[in-house]
Structure formats: C-alpha cells, structure tokens
C-alpha cells in the first residue's frame, strides 16, 4: 500500500555540525525577521513510554542487566501424539511423544506412569502404563483405554491420529491402597534485558550565542542570569525534544546490539521486537479489520490470559480501518477502571477511544510514531509499521520465583552518575569555555544529556501484534 504523500515537507529538518556557528544561521536565513514567525511547532508527537512512565512510574535497577522469571507454560499439561497409531477396541496402544514436550536435551518430559489422559477430540480416557525414555526426543509410552469397549482413538477414527492432543488428568481412579505418583515440576523461564545508554548534545559558539537572532523563546530570569540566550535555549529545547523522541523510539522499536565492532553496548530489546519474538502476531488485509477479526483477536487474548483492559496502539492506516461502526457497536459501557495508567484519567489524558467486546476493554489510540511520514516527512515504499498495531495488556503478572507482581510493561532505569538533573533519570550538564560552567579555553557552550533506560515486557505471550500485509 502506498504511503502518505510528504513532498510538501522540507528535508532535511536538521543537520549535524560539531558546533552551531553563526554562518549556519545566516544560511538558513533565520536572522531575517520575516521568517521567524513561520517557524512554529508544526509536527506533534505522542510518546507512549513517557506517558507510561508518568502514570505508572519507573522502576530503578542497580545493574545494567536485569531479569525476571515467568512460568514456562500453562498449569494444566497436555502433550501430542507424534504419529498415527491404530487402536483396537480395549487394546493398549504404544505412542510416540510429540516434539514440543521435551526438555533438557530431550531427556525430560511431563509423562508419568498412572497419569490419566483424555483425548481432546473424543474425550476418551486412558491411563499411561509404561514409559520408554531410552532415546532422547523419541520417548514412547503405552496407554490403555479405561473402558474395554472403547478404542483409545481420535473422534471418528480407528486410530489415534498424529498431532492429537492428550490432556493430562492426574492420578485419577488410583484404586485402593494406591501408591505415590511422581510429581509434575512446574518449569520457570528466565528472561533478560539490559539498560542502554541514550545520549545527545547541543553545542554553539560564542558568536552564535551573542548574535541578536530575533528569537522570542521565553527564557526565565535565572536561566538568562546563567548566560542562556534565547537562541541557546531554543537549540537546547529542540535537542531535548528530539532526544526525548529518540528515547521513545529506542524503547519501543529498538533492539539489542551484539556487533562489538561498533562499541561495547549491549543495547536493549524494545517492546516491539520483544513482542514480535515472543508474542502473538495476527495478520490482516488492510480494509478487512472488522468485527470477525476482533473476535479472532479476543479469542487469542482469552487463550493467553490477557488482562481485561488493554491498550491498542495503531498507525494511522489501521486506525482508519476501525470504522465508526465498530466503535458504535461496542461502546465502552460500564467498566471498572484501575489505577495509574489504567485509570480513566490516564486514558483521557492519552486520548484513548474505547470499545468493549467479548469482555475486553480495548483502548484504541493512534500512535503517530508508527508512520515514518508523520515523524520525519519522508515516505518509504515499504514501511514496517504501516498498517501496524500493538495490543498491550494493562495487567500484572507474578514473577514465578519471587511472586512479586510485575506490570506487563515497566519502564526501567538506572540513576545516572550524580543523579538526574531534569528528573526521570535524565542527566543534563553544561561544559565548554562559553558555558556558565567553564571547563576549558574553547569558547563554546556545550550541553549534553544522557539517560539509562530499558523496558521490561512480562508475559509477552499476552501481547498481540496486529499487522497488515
């Protein structure tokens, strides 16, 4: 699908120089008074991680690496049958365990003698009699039907078909003076992520600072007393906003780094790469995001234990696929809102539009940063985030090791050295001979900013990416 035309937006919007100098301002004709009134804030931004940090807070970690534990699978076990096996009436069958049920290099599985099994398609019950665990990744086990008049077979078949799901039923019908059954050990999975360093800077020369530029950016009296001119303040302000956007982009769509030829940073896995890897992805054809598709999505949410209140961030194209009909058909209705980012106030502040379907409140919001056209003014032929949406549950999950409750998404940070000077873990400092804090003889005023951040995405299986072709 074609993108949004952007030929009316001038490129580039900024350039890189070692320091801002007077010549640059002349080149851009910013000194000419008739232009400056047109130089306004034209392109808006809607940051998700900053909104989340504001309403839900951030969590400080003391080390660059942090980790948490999640249950590896569902509480109730089930396995599959690897190959079709003929099943006679009342006869014991020998089955090969499906590939997904192995652990520890194929030497451990959930199978245990005396476990009751129920066939998913026919609900016929059987019991495991013996297990042959001599070959890794190729365990076989014998199962006898509990009724002599039944075959241990799939529905409508004389055989137990390949891929048939066998539900575990515990040590049922254990008999008199029964013996102990082996326990089932619930497995945990450790997940890691790293805090990464994100920085930017602003620098201008003495002449650039002193020039009368006709800027009317408001500079407070105390900043002016520190030598901050309107021009410096404007440059710093623009850099800060861009820095904020870059932090947002890194935490949302950025990924880890392992190319040591660049530097030794490990980077951080952002929310979307994490969900792409470990979450569910639902494909759709643009123009067909209808009620049937929403039902498919809520079914997936149900299976994965998704929170009843979820945010759905969409790009502009996907947002337009939500017809007014869908919003009208499923109004938010009566719903008990939560606290923090789940509060009605936070929802209103962020501009969510809500629908209530199949017991799930979906707070839909256009996320402008998905569309390259909106953020940069360029139109890619293929844009990864065109017709893209992210459903994130506003829920909590317990760390399976410590039982500590974690929100599905938390913004993590390390406190910068000397502490944050703006708050929220961002350190901003000035240096150079032309700065209020002169550090050398070169007449430049340099401003640097850095933050140490990451996100923790817990229970990524509950997240859904809704991605158009």
């Amino acid at each position, binding site marked *: 699908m074609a993108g949004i035309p952007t030929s009316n937006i001038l490129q580039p919007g900024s350039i890189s120089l070692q320091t801002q100098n007077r010549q640059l301002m002349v080149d851009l004709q910013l000194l000419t008074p008739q232009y400056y009134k047109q130089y306004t804030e034209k392109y808006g931004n809607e940051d998700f991680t900053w909104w989340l940090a504001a309403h839900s807070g951030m969590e400080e970690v003391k080390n660059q690496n942090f980790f948490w534990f999640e249950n590896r699978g569902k509480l109730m076990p089930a396995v599959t049958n690897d190959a079709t096996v003929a099943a006679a009436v009342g006869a014991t069958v020998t089955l090969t365990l499906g590939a997904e049920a192995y652990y520890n290099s194929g030497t451990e599985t959930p199978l245990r003698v005396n476990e009751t099994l129920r066939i998913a398609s026919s609900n016929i019950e059987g019991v495991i009699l013996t297990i042959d665990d001599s070959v890794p990744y190729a365990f076989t086990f014998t199962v006898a039907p509990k009724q002599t*008049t039944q075959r241990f077979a799939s529905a409508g078949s*004389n055989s137990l078909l390949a891929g048939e799901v066998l539900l575990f039923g515990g040590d049922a019908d254990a008999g008199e003076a029964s013996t102990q059954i082996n326990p089932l050990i619930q497995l945990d999975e450790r997940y890691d992520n790293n805090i990464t360093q994100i920085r930017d800077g602003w620098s201008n020369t003495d002449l650039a600072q002193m020039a009368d530029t006709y800027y009317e950016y408001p500079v407070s009296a105390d900043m002016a007393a520190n030598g901050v001119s309107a021009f410096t303040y404007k440059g710093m302000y623009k850099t800060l906003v861009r820095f904020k956007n870059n932090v947002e982009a890194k935490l949302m769509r950025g990924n880890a780094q392992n190319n040591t030829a660049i530097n030794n940073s490990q980077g951080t896995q952002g929310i979307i790469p994490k969900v792409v890897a470990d979450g569910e992805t639902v494909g759709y054809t643009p123009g*067909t995001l209808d009620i*049937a598709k929403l039902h498919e999505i809520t079914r997936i949410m149900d299976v994965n234990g998704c929170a009843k209140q979820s945010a759905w961030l969409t790009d502009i194209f996907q947002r337009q696929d939500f017809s007014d009909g869908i919003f009208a058909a499923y109004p938010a209705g009566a719903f008990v809102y939560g606290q923090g980012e789940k509060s009605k106030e936070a929802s209103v502040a962020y501009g969510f539009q809500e629908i209530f379907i199949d017991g799930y409140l979906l707070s839909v919001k256009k996320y402008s940063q998905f569309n390259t056209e909106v953020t940069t003014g360029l139109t890619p032929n293929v844009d990864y985030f065109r017709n893209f949406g992210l459903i994130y549950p506003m829920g909590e999950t317990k760390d399976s090791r410590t039982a500590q409750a974690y929100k599905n998404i938390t913004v993590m940070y390390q406190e910068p050295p000397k502490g944050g000077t703006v708050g929220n873990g961002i350190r901003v400092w000035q240096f150079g001979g032309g700065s209020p804090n002169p550090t050398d003889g070169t007449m430049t005023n340099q401003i640097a900013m850095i933050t140490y951040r990451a996100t923790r995405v817990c229970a990524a299986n509950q997240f859904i990416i809704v991605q158009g072709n």
Partner: protein
Amino acid sequence: MARLKAVGLSDANFANQGEEIRRTRQEEESTTAMSEAPQSSNIFKIFKLTDTKKNGKYHMEGIDDVFHPERKRIERVRLLTGYPSIWVEDQKGLEKTFVEKNRRSLIFDRRVLRIPDYDTAALEFLSVCNANVDNPNKKGTRKITFFQWNPERQAEVERAKRVAKIEAIKFASMASDDDMRKHCNYLGILFNDELGMPKSMDTLRNDYELYAEAQPNKFMISAGSKEVEIAYTVKKALLDNKIDVSVRKGSAYWSNDGGFICKIPSTAKPQAYLVEYAMLPQDESKAFLEQLKKFNY
C-alpha cells in the same frame, strides 16, 4: 418352591433379555463398521516461517492480492471454510454473513503450519500467496514470509556444503609446499606462531587445512588461481625491495632503474593494488606481469 434370588439367578433379569441382545448387537454392528472402514492416511504439508526467532503464534490472514497465473493479472484470494474456490472472482453471490463467519486464518505455531493434503483450498492459497518465498509470481514485499518445508532441498544444501568442505580439505592436504605457501600468503594465514617463531611446514599445513575446513568456499575460489601466484610475486618483490612504493607517495617504481610502474590511489593498499594492476588487460599491466615473472619466485 425356591425363589430366583435364592438360586442366584435374580441378576440374570430374564425379563430384559431382549434388550441385552439388542445392545450387544448394536455394539458389534458399530465395531464391525468401524473395523471395516477404509483407513484414511493423511499426508501433511509443512510450512515454516522464515523468521527463526518467532516463538509466539502467527495467525496469517487468509486474504491476499496475488498474481493469477492463468488470467495474468492481480486478483484477490480469500480463504473460506466450506467453499472450494479461493478466488474472490469465483465467490460472487455469497452472502456477506457467510463470508464474515467463514473467513479462515492459518496459524503458524512456533513457526510451523501443518496442512493435510485434502485441504486443497488452503494449499492453493499458500502456493499463490505473496508471503511464500518459493512463489515465483509473488509481488511486493511482505513483512512476514514462509516457505514450504522441503527436507530433500535441505539435504542437498547440507550435502553440497559437506562436499565443498571435503574438496577443500583434499586440496589443502595435496597441495605442494610451494603452492601452499603462496596460497597461505594470499589467504592471510600467518607464517609465524603466537610467539613470533616461524611455523614448520607441518604446522602451516595444519592451519591451511583448518582454513579450508572453516571456509571451504572462500578457500576454493582462490585455490590454484592466477591471482594467488601474482599476489605472492608482488609481495616478494616488495619485501626484496625490487618494487619501491615509498620514494614517492602514491606511485610505484622499479628499484633497479627507477622505471615508473603505475600510480596507486590514495585509498588503496599498494600490494593489493599492484596485484589488481598486474591482472588488467592493458599493455602496461602485461609488461608489469612479464617483468614480475622474470624474478622466478
């Protein structure tokens, strides 16, 4: 007179004998029908996502705009449960509610999708789908792609790799000491060990074979090539000061008579550029090569 209960016959319940026979007959009838039913053996076709890091499921929408191989134009396909054709052109007249309720998604679970061979509609959809990397008629770019699992193709690829490795190791073990030294020079295999001592021929050959095993394709591309010979000769000529690249930066001269060889671009390394220069078809390059050959390295 003894009662039935007293002689242990009460449980026989002669009154229900007809019902018991009927039940047994029905069970046998059903069992016979099931036993004699033709066996249905399903063959599954396996499809896999190209993204090997995808752990969660991918629910692929059964709609796409694809190239129609016979009508030679882009048409929409839509996979519907209970309808044989996937082409929307052939689905005209279907009720809107039927279409809405029967749209199908195909689910890749941990990258894998299994489709039985009788599900011809799904298989046709997958074959014409733009996300299928094996589809010769695919159009546009898809963010999530898949391929049909083909163990024979994979076996061929793996075998080809193994054969290439064997051939490279064979070449490395059979090469003469002289050829090996020249090729080692070209490949950048060090002639000294980590303590700076010259490697013995056996040690050098071991490293040579290790290189062949680790990078068989790169090894075989240059094995026995003219470029290897020239690279060795140029390096020797530079080491023996027969070519001078330092007297004037950016130029190469013969040391004996000061004859000009060529200019060397500032971005190029002299040795690599001289090798490249010697292989050019022009007369100056041929003369340079002839002169190099006279050194008999």
